């Protein structure tokens, strides 16, 4: 049993653990008492989803998943900025 197979096993285990952390953040997004709590939780879920996409790209050997991860990071960032600006100003202009 060399270190390469150990690394493949650890990447799969890490993807499952990051999924458990996404559910921990989703609890805060559900019960969060104020709106910025929910926005922060959704932003954190976006970052963790990006990590899961790159881990799946490594596990299955599909390299074009990394481009999808880039687009996902961009859209998560734009969504967070837009919702936070809407909460601050009451309008998106």
């Amino acid at each position, binding site marked *: 049993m060399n270190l390469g197979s150990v690394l493949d096993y650890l*990447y799969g285990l890490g993807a499952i653990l*990051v999924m458990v952390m996404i559910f921990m953040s989703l609890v805060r997004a559900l019960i969060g008492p104020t709106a910025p709590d929910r926005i922060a939780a959704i*932003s954190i879920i976006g*970052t963790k989803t*990006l990590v899961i996409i790159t881990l799946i790209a490594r596990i299955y050997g599909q390299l074009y998943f*990394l481009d999808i991860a880039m687009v996902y990071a961009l859209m998560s960032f734009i969504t967070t900025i837009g919702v*936070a600006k809407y909460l601050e100003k009451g309008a998106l202009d």
Partner: protein
Amino acid sequence: MEILIDIISIICLIGGLFFLFVGALGLLRLPDVYNRLHATTKCDTLGAGLLLLSLALQSSAAVGVRLGLLIIFILITNPTAAHVIARSAYKTGRRPIVSRGNTDD
């Protein structure tokens, strides 16, 4: 050399998972919006960066460049998003909680 890179990659993977877990726990347990942002933005940036670094050490040059771009993008955008969230929370009238001996406002 191969074994050394594998060991560094395993260390980065476990460190990244640890920091991501600490960030999620802080988001779940801390009492205030500003405390939660303080816990999660730093831990999430460092944890995701370490995990992507662990993947970049194992891959070829083209994939490594893409993962490096993702790390730089996360390092720029994650603190910016946390700053905008904290500013919107402050502008909409939510003040941070203070300790009992510090109520001079």
